[in-house]
């Protein structure tokens, strides 16, 4: 029995949330007295993959055939299943993401495995295999006992603090045989904003609402985000009005973020928006309305005009560097 962790790649390196998944899997391996292996799919820098060792993995299986170059949840699920079988893994860890939910689900059906998504803490192994997971869009938690012989867990950002040690993992090529059924869909085209920081990976998010008054007034928010090295997001009305692209929409029906710092500018704080940000460690609300509900959910608040405050904050950030 062993632990297998799937990692997502970004430009050939392991994503930060995936390194947390490695640390999470390695911690379970330590408790159970077994080893943790990593599966990476797609183009990668081999020395970047070896970094998984610093987070506790002993080896990395690297699947990188040309047919796996584009993200394909079905093919990735088949590769994951083959890796689970080869490594005789009984616990499989994936970072929570759209891709990982999709491939984890298909792998779970292939393996007859238990699948639990949205896990927020390390499992309690003293009596069974109990994990805490986020439910009702962050408004509550459920502790579930995972009973399957194989357990697949999708872990949320910040489920564990990933601290790099000094280990280096061995990287081995992994090329299981894949069926044609995984490749029936054809990718016609992709539209991807380049060079943008990923909202779900970002440690800091600066987000704007209707109080920003229009797409032409976004620059002060973008300036603060750049000064902080933050990703930018927005509320639902803002993406509905096409002020900002849909992939920036944070909330109940949009992206759920869990950064260390979330700065809400001109967002009133409707419950549907809060559902997308309530896993953030620290929340700052800036709003001209002192009654804005966001202040009840925030750690720090400033009542005032965003167009006065944002440039002053940007200046303060730049001066403190």
């Amino acid at each position: 029995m062993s632990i297998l962790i799937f990692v997502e790649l970004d430009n050939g390196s392991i994503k930060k949330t995936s390194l947390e998944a490695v640390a999470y899997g390695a911690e379970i391996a330590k408790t159970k007295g077994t080893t943790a292996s990593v599966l990476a799919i797609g183009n990668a820098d081999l020395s970047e993959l070896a970094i998984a060792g610093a987070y506790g993995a002993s080896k990395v299986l690297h699947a990188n055939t040309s047919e796996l170059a584009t993200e394909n949840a079905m093919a990735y699920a088949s590769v994951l299943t083959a890796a689970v079988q080869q490594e005789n893994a009984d616990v499989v860890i994936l970072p929570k993401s759209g891709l990982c939910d999709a491939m984890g689900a298909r792998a779970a059906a292939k393996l007859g495995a238990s699948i639990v998504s949205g896990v927020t803490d390390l499992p309690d192994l003293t009596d069974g295999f109990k994990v805490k997971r986020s439910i009702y869009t962050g408004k509550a938690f459920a502790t579930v006992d995972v009973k399957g012989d194989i357990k697949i867990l999708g872990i949320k950002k910040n489920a564990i603090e990933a601290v790099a040690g000094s280990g280096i993992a061995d990287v081995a090529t992994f090329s299981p045989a894949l069926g044609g059924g995984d490749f029936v869909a054809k990718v016609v085209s992709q539209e991807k904003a380049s060079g943008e920081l990923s909202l779900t990976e970002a440690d800091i998010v600066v987000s704007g609402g209707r109080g920003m008054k229009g797409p032409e007034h976004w620059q002060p928010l973008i300036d603060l985000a750049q000064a902080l090295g933050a990703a930018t997001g927005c509320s639902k009305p803002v993406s509905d009005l096409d002020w900002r692209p849909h992939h920036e929409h944070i909330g109940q029906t949009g992206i759920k973020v869990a950064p260390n710092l979330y700065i809400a500018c001109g967002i009133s704080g409707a419950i549907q928006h809060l559902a997308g940000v309530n896993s953030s460690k620290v929340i700052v609300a800036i709003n001209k309305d002192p009654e804005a509900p966001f202040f009840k959910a925030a750690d720090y608040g400033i009542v005032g005009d965003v167009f006065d405050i944002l440039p002053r904050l940007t200046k303060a950030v730049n001066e403190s560097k």
Partner: protein
Amino acid sequence: MKILVCITNVPDTTAKISFAENDTKFNKAGVQYIIGPYDDYALARAVELKEQLGGSITVLNVGEADSDPQIRKALAIGADDAIRVNCDPQDSFFTAVQIAAIAKEGGFDLILMGRESIDFNSGVVHGLVGEMLGIPSFSPVMKLDIQGSTATFAREIEGGKEYLEAPLPLVLGCQEPIAEWKIPNMRGIMTARTKPLKVVEPVAVDELTTLDKYTLPAPKGACKMIPVDQAETLISLLKTEAKVL
């Protein structure tokens, strides 16, 4: 075109969440239930596709009798018939087995559902059902068109969109802006009363997870207000006090 739309019966997005029976049951008292918002988008697109291409829409819910008002609403919006698998669903795997069992019988071209339920937020049922049926599954789908036996659709990916083409049958997890939510009209509400709603018993599934208990997050401390003329002190507080910069 035979379309199966799977809907969840979930607390309204503004509902206050609390638990009963020693934190082992969701407290339904005073809670308004709705069709899952993502499922509602899937249903709306199904109705549009049926208007375009003809065919039928079956709506499916895995749940208890208190789902019936939401099922009737789906019928009023435009589904032709409904099936409810009569049980309190245990987990994603259990639910997926029930959906796959119904889908196998029905010979559907398209199986639509929301990208995730808003109660358990797992986002894995479409993938499980796809694999159980041996057909492709995609999520989150934000645009969908059908030409003959081919679907062309757009999926949200990190920082953008991906446009795909795949042969039917397919399982798709949907989200906005695939269609606008539809509000049932009076005629729809009247005809929904007589549309067939079949109640079937669940297929047996090995228990893969069991609930231990529910918990609520620790209450949030008070918000520290910073006077606007000292807005700049926020940055130093974030550094030294909150330690997030």
